[in-house]
């Protein structure tokens, strides 16, 4: 039987300039799930991702299930290096120990995955916003990571582009079902994508609501009664 290793944050405390952001904060993300974190702007969602990613050190508390795991990131802005081509931007995160032919075939595969093969030699300044975000998607999937952290990666994109990138993301995710922690303030995005939804808020930050969605992603319908009920629960908590 496969052992499910969750990612657990235990009794986390973090304060900024005397303001306590997290105190006695606990959350558990199941492995292989897309876990969406919803919350109002400035409620501490990004800080939570930074703590999980190890960029922000908590004052106290423990993070379990992250030891020796590789983490990938998709940020709100694509954060591509302007002086590197699309191909080199993805290559940037690949291990330097990979041999050149292995590396090349990995890059070709990723470029194909995000449908950017013919733009491999373009610089970021020559790409549209949606294309740049697809490069950042490919970069995140380039690493053999067990966890992917996503910080509102679709904000600022129009609806059709959002859908296009989300579908692409789900297609890639289904191949290896990595644990995804997806921060967003868009309820529909969370309902479309998440297997688990956490609503966080208040100061210090608490988990205000935790819901699991059993319906598989392909069959999910935003107007179905079960999803509508979850939406109403979320709205009530966020009120």
């Amino acid at each position: 039987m496969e052992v499910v290793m969750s990612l657990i944050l235990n009794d986390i405390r973090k304060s900024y300039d005397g303001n306590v952001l997290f105190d006695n904060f606990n959350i558990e993300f199941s492995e292989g799930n897309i876990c969406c974190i919803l919350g109002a702007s400035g409620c501490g969602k990004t800080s939570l991702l930074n703590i999980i990613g190890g960029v922000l050190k908590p004052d106290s508390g423990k993070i379990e299930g992250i030891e020796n795991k590789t983490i990938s990131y998709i940020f709100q802005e694509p954060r591509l290096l302007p002086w590197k081509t699309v191909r080199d931007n993805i290559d940037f995160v690949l291990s330097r120990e990979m041999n050149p032919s292995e590396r090349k075939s990995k890059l070709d595969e990723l470029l194909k995955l995000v449908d950017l093969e013919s733009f491999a030699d373009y610089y970021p300044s020559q790409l549209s916003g949606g294309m740049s975000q697809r490069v950042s998607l490919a970069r995140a999937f380039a690493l053999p990571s067990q966890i992917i952290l996503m910080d509102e990666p679709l904000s600022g994109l129009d609806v059709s582009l959002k859908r296009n990138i989300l579908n692409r993301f789900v297609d890639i995710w289904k191949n290896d079902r990595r644990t995804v922690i997806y921060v967003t303030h868009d309820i529909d995005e969370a309902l479309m994508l998440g297997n688990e939804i956490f609503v966080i808020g208040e100061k210090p930050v608490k988990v205000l609501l935790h819901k699991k969605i059993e319906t598989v992603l392909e069959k999910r319908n935003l107007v179905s009664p079960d999803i509508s009920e979850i939406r109403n629960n979320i709205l009530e908590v966020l009120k």
Partner: protein
Amino acid sequence: MKSFINNKKTYIILASVIVMLLLWEFASIRINSVHLLPGPLETLKAVANLFVTRDFLLIIWNTVLRGIIGFLIAVILGMGLGIVAGLNPSFEYFIRPWIVVMRSVPIVSFILLALIWFTSNSVPIFIGFLTMFPMIFTNIIEGMRNVDNKLIDMAKFYKISQKRIVTEVYIPAIAPFVTSGISSAVGIGWRAIIVGEVLSQPEFGIGMSMHTAQSFLNVDVLIAWTFVAILLSFLFEQIIRFAERKIIRWR
């Protein structure tokens, strides 16, 4: 329309040069002494004569070599220290007074001191370095301040080594600042090196040749060497611009 404007621009520049030459010719006729102010034609002859002078290439090569050595030391130290200072604010505070001294002490004070301390061959290199280094260093500090922190965070998130962050994120990010710093530093550096040569009088060098011409009242030769210096400066500026276009083609 664009070509019309470009043509107009060319005509105006051409007219300006012609007026300058006419004024020069007029002044030369008025003064009526080849020893004090030769006209453009006499000067052109002097330039042509320079090309067949025995040591012409040796003189130019010595000045260029001094320029390149001073330039390389300034670039290597300016970039190295600039990057370290950009990464480490304490180091920037430490080195700031040195830069202030280099920028505010009159260059002639340095030259006079260098004449006591160094050989005549190294004085121009030292002076070239002193003028170029602060400009390159300051531009690099400015570039380091402008590096997008989000890109650095991205690299750190992906656990990229500090060495690769410096070579693949910081250095390309500051490249436009480096090239603009180098471009202005080289313009001033040439002049400083030639002044250094005039005062230190090495065996060969454009500055030394200008000094000799001045001593013998060969004004035409003096102006001819000035032309050579301008030509060299122009040539190096073109090389830098070419390199700049190659380095920051991603823009």
